[in-house]
């Protein structure tokens, strides 16, 4: 199971990086989303997916699944969600003000 998850995370990372290197602003945002999904999947997989009972204190169960990475990944997902929504608004605003969503045209070293 872990192998499949790692493979999936790698595909997400690869697709994310590919999109990040595109010129269109929206594709870049999608790229960051894919990379964040990949990172979260890595986090879950790194702590092993299933290695015993649910993390509840019950008599007779000694092997517990580690609950900590799931709590941590939940925090990371919420953060990534917030940042993504901000990024979408910023990308839209940049597009309306600069009249272009092409990163080639958004380069430059003039400071007003």
């Amino acid at each position, binding site marked *: 199971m872990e192998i499949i998850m790692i493979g999936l995370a790698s595909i997400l990372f690869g697709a994310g990086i590919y999109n990040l290197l595109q010129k269109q602003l929206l594709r870049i945002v999608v790229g960051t989303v894919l990379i964040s999904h990949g990172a979260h999947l890595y986090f879950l997989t790194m702590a092993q997916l299933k290695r015993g009972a649910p993390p509840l204190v019950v008599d007779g169960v000694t092997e517990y699944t580690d609950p900590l990475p799931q709590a941590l990944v939940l925090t990371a997902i919420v953060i990534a969600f917030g940042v993504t929504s901000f*990024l979408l608004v910023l990308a839209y605003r*940049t597009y309306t003000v600069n009249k272009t969503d092409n990163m080639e045209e958004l380069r430059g070293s003039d400071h007003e």
Partner: protein
Amino acid sequence: MNNLIFLPIVLPLIASVIAAFFPKKLNLSRKFAQITSVILTIMTAALTWHVLTNGIIVVQSGGWEAPFGISIVGDGLSMVLVMTTYIIGTAAVFYAPSVLDKQQESFYFYAFFFLLISGVVGAFMTGDLFNLFVFFEVMLIASYGLIVLGNGKVQLRESMKYVLFNVFSSMLFVVAIAFIYAITGTVNFAQLAERVEYVEQAGILTTVAIILFFVFAVKAAIFPLYYWLPNSYVVPNAVVSALFGALLTKVGIYSILRVFTLIFVHDTGVTHQIFIWLAMFTMLFGVIGALSTNNVKLIITYNIIPAVGFMLMGIGLYTEDAIAGSVYYLMHDMVIKGALFFLIGALIVAAGTKDLREMSGVIQKFPLLGGSSSLPL
């Protein structure tokens, strides 16, 4: 007394929420921000004094032990940096009304400001790698809010790059924490420091160390990764640039200092040797960048980069004296960069231009400004 160590993190967060309720009432929000930051500074000074005389305070939040609960650590290094942060923050709050225009100020400047302070202070005081990531994000999200204040064409263009770069490095941070958790089974700094000694695959730790270094180096603007910094720090308002230049890169270098003097200390031949080379190039290219322009604000912005190089050099040398020098320079640079950006902001207003060639004779009109400019320079 021990639980009071949370106050420097929690109170600005509460102040940020309160300030978000009345952004349009400028007089009220100015007074509120000024009074709050003065009270916070005095309180932090008392806490710092307490820590420096009575020793380190460690608090586990909610009474949960270290790997589950979040530990907040107030030791000498972090308290001194928190104190410096509050001094700069207070200065910024009193400076802000005179350089921000009314519209920028009423668009939640004070709310974002307190959020930024909370994030920076939290990053300084946390005793837990994942919590460091969370406070990095708090700080970065506040900085995203501040960098787009003003909504100019160039500003949005450069903010976009700043945000993208930081989002990417944050995601790598998550991956690095995942690796560390898989290897050691903890994210607490103190436990990590104990456990890395017994980890048998030492090579993998060095790899993780380099990934973490990449993340912090992006934030701290170290040589190959500094190119996002000049353009995005020069576009926002002077007070925002001052906060960024004084606080944000310093959090990155503090994280490097913390992680590479506490956790990844068993293979200094690889990691710390790289630091010395990168520090050299950082200093060199930062200074060349500063020489390349006539825009005064850009010159000061480029000055952030060699300063970071100096601190990294101290960490790379990895002797007691070198690290003491780095910490001293860190505090010094926070204050001086803040002061420089404040003065340059005033200078641009006074001279009416950003171009160094057209800016002459300002000292005759404003002798006090000229005199005080020579102090940080």
